[in-house]
């Protein structure tokens, strides 16, 4: 069974049909959760990076100042991912060959790996080295902004 077959049966599944045939405002609602969740995620990333660079609250310990934003980050991630999955299920055959969507998925995967493997470890170090700070800030902006930019381009390529 090819990827297209799998995706077609996903699209024809009960959930896929239910979302696809529902009022287009259901899709719009999923989009609203997708965008609000993602804005929360990005806001947390921006805030943590500003602290890593010493531009915001330099006198508050890193671990203390990043604890809640990390929760916001994963909260936003959850809402954006679930709503994104629902949007995908309704028309997977439209998405899977879209170059912007493929780039977005790759960046999304890399961002999760980076988040767990490096970023959250750096935040537990009280005084990370300058190099580590710059690498973390640059990679997190590149990956998460990249997810946003490629995601926004899905409708236009």
């Amino acid at each position, binding site marked *: 069974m090819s990827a297209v077959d799998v995706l077609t049966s996903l699209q024809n599944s009960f959930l896929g049909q239910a979302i696809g045939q529902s009022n287009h405002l259901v899709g719009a609602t999923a989009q609203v959760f997708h965008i609000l969740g993602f*804005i929360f995620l990005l806001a947390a990333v921006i805030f943590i990076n500003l602290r890593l660079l010493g531009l*915001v609250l330099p006198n508050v310990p890193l671990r203390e100042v990043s604890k*809640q934003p990390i929760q916001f980050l994963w909260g936003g991630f959850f809402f954006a991912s679930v709503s994104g999955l629902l949007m995908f299920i309704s028309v997977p055959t439209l998405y899977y060959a879209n170059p912007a969507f493929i780039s977005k998925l790759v960046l999304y995967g890399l961002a999760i790996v980076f988040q767990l493997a490096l970023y959250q470890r750096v935040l537990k170090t009280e005084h990370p080295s300058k190099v580590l700070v710059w690498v973390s800030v640059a990679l997190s902006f590149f990956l998460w902004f990249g997810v946003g*930019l490629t995601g*926004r381009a899905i409708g236009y390529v």
Partner: protein
Amino acid sequence: MSTLLELAQGLQHSGFGTALAESRYAFPLIEGTHLIGLSISVGLIFLIDLRLVGLFLRQVPAHTLLRSLLPIVLWGFALIFITGVLLFISEADTIIVSPAFPVKLVLLFLGGLNALYFEFKLSREPAFQSNTAAILPDKVRYSGFASLALWTLVIIAGRMLAYL
């Protein structure tokens, strides 16, 4: 309304508007930059609002958090304003007839009004400036709730531009 529509059509069909709308890379890139600008401005405002209502970084004085984030919020606003105008120019004649557009403008106005009231009145009062308490006075908290609600609605109205 018809002159507004004509003006919008004129804008969109100007060389610049057409070039933007038809460009393979420019349009999606401006859309993406608008989203990133939103997360810088509105996203950081959400964090400030959460502190105002007492749900975020309660151990840090609200005034300290506000002063350190505000310049960055303003840069984010510059970014969404510029990209927003460009997006309007390239899609002017569909945006101007969408009922979501006047709603978004009204909400933007109210959000801006609340922000100005907070910045020039509430945040300059001693009850805020020298307040290191976790929980702030009621009027500050209400302004934080209003800001959370209004900017959320601005984003929703903005997203609805593509649907209504």
